[in-house]
């Protein structure tokens, strides 16, 4: 009998816990998917309006040329990089408690990595000139670096995620525990590459995955850096800062971990995976989160106190806007409270380190980090170095329109629909990783 067909107790238990998902969708599930599809349709209608009429249907204008789309782009792609980095490190160092997390992290990285770039495409006014990015590419331009880095990264994370899944595809192909439809069997057969679990095959897959994980870390740092340089290398107050890159890396990894914790919680509750995703996993992730969030708090403080103390004209203008309660003050302070202060204070208290509280903190952090992204993009754009005279108010102050809201929500809905569909196709807990358990 092939190794992929004979499962131990634990593997059988996982398969049985998740199998129901793979077999047949329920009513609530259908309703949820329908709701998400409606949101995506609304976004599609917004996109249709935007293509038909032009970017004038958005709140983006002459000065504030970027808004929700770019905020979403840097948010999603940052989360993707962060999740990829975590998955790669946990995998490479074979962190014992990391087994169930690697898969979820890789899925987050893969899915947000697909959604993120869609939002940069939404910023493009002339789709017919999209290929100019390649045929007129200038090696000197950070935009060119970003185009290269993101496409390279996407291929990398796809290969990495796939490598992580091959062994499970083989198990799903060979299992007799589940009644799978024939198209599924065919799909798993094709995707499992005739993997049978021989020592040689296993060694080769492990080696390839490990080498992908190894190269993932510098690649992700590079990708992070390039994206942040698009801002950092622009001579704009509060963008043109050397700490922009590190602060972006740290906060994105934190947001990525927040999302992973959220998904761990959802999958655990939904599929009864308490045995595999335990309180220990939540606590360990929370500790990583606290370290990152503390570093981000330090970077934030360092950035703003430097600007405040040196009183550069334009930097001060941006800082004043961000701190003023009449402008972005509430958003800024609340975001810092939820993204920095609360996680540190609450996780410091041992009795609060429960999966529920950690998941709630992560949810707040995920939203707060998005607000910080928005504050990265918009206030500096509202503070042009050349004062704008006689401009209409909507040119000076950005406010998103329903089209942008619709597309942002459609992006979030796409994210959720991917994560709703993922357990229908793959096992969210790596079954193959439990093969060394007692038979």
């Amino acid at each position, binding site marked *: 009998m092939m190794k992929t067909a004979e499962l131990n107790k634990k593997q059988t238990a996982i398969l049985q816990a998740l199998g129901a998902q793979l077999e047949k969708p329920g009513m609530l599930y259908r309703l949820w998917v329908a709701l998400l599809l409606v949101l995506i*349709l609304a976004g599609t209608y917004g996109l249709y309006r935007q293509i038909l009429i032009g970017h004038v249907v958005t709140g983006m204008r002459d000065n504030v040329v970027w808004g929700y789309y770019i905020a979403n782009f840097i948010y999603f792609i940052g989360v993707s990089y962060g999740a990829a980095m975590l998955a790669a490190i946990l995998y490479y160092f074979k962190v014992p408690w990391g087994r169930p997390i690697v898969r979820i992290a890789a899925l987050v990285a893969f899915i947000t990595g697909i959604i993120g770039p869609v939002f940069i495409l939404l910023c493009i006014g002339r789709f017919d000139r999209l290929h100019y990015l390649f045929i007129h590419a200038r090696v000197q331009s950070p935009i060119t670096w970003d185009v290269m880095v993101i496409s*390279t990264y996407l*291929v990398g994370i796809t290969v990495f995620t796939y490598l992580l899944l091959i062994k499970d595809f083989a198990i799903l192909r060979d299992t007799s525990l589940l009644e799978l439809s024939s198209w599924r069997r065919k799909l798993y057969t094709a995707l499992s590459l005739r993997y049978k679990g021989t020592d040689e095959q296993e060694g080769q897959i492990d080696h390839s995955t490990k080498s992908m994980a190894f190269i993932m870390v510098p690649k992700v740092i590079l990708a992070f850096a390039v994206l942040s340089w698009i801002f950092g290398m622009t001579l704009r107050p509060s963008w043109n800062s050397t700490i922009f890159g590190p602060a972006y890396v740290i906060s994105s990894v934190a947001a990525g971990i927040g999302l992973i914790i959220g998904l761990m919680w959802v999958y655990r509750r939904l599929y009864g995976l308490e045995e595999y995703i335990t309180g220990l996993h939540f606590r360990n992730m929370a500790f990583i989160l606290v370290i990152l969030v503390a570093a981000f708090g330090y970077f934030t403080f360092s950035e703003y106190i430097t600007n405040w103390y040196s009183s550069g004209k334009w930097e001060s203008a941006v800082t004043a806007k961000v701190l003023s309660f009449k402008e972005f003050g509430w958003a800024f302070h609340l975001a810092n409270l939820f993204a920095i202060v609360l996680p540190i204070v609450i996780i410091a208290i041992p009795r609060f380190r429960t999966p529920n509280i950690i998941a709630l903190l992560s949810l707040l952090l995920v939203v707060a980090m998005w607000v910080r992204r928005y504050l990265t993009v918009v206030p500096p754009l509202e503070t042009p170095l050349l004062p704008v005279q006689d401009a209409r108010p909507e040119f000076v102050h950005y406010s998103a*329109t329903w089209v942008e*809201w619709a597309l942002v929500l459609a992006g979030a809905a796409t994210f959720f629909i991917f994560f709703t569909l993922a357990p229908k196709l793959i096992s969210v807990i790596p079954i193959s990783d439990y093969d060394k358990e007692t038979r």
Partner: protein
Amino acid sequence: MKRSNSIFRLLTFGYWAKALLLALLAGLPGSALWAQEEEEEPEQISSRMSLSAIQGDEDKLTLKALVRAKIDGRFTGLQGLEVVFFSPSDTLEKELGRDSTDMDGIASLSVSKSALQADTGGAFILKAVFEGNALFEESDDEIAVTAAGMALEAMEEDSVRTLVATLESGGAPVAEADVYFYVQGAFSPLKIGEATTDEEGMASVEFPAGLPGDPDGNIHIIARLEEDETFGTVEANVNKAWGRKLEASHNQSRALWSSSPPLWLLLTFITLLVIIWGHYLEVIYKLFRLRKKAAAEG
């Protein structure tokens, strides 16, 4: 009719999509959600027209009609409006042509003076009309222009360069008129001097040395009588190779700003891409090999 119309509007998909979104987004701070796309019925704004004429070389006369309106407290040129130009006489209004206003709010039309009919005083009566639309009220303007011509000569004597403009109307010289001299720059004309015409209708200035020209040293020189009550604007042009030759920059050294990137940047870029993609290819190749081997082993 009106009621059924509004029901029809309510039933469009856009309406429902928006209503659904608003319901979902209730509570989110997005006042702009409501502001966008709500079409208000605007009142008509009064517009204002100013017509001017430029008499150029030979027979040419160019009409320029500027259409403006007071928007947010200041006059702004209106784009995309159709202006009709007429030459009215005692008996009928002859249409000369039409043009749409450009982004500055100016519509223009060139006609030949010989095709125009002068009135008893020897002047051309010219009129421009904007007929109004849903947003702006109609406006018009009328001017009288007496035919005049200007000649511009560029003379060089003992390395002194002089520009002489001669202004005439109906064969007689025009005296006591202020003529301005310009050279055309990349964007707008640069004034180099002004003079008043003498009894022979001549005005002259010395041409300054050291002005930059094109790669052959050519400079485009303009003499102009500006917005005169009787003649409107009258101008003459001449090209002279009196400028410094502009040296085209052939400096294509590698730099951040030139078309070829610094070598270190190019090498870093290529090296990184080659390492990462080479690595990908190796992993993907191994996967193919794994599958092939498994197939061979059965």
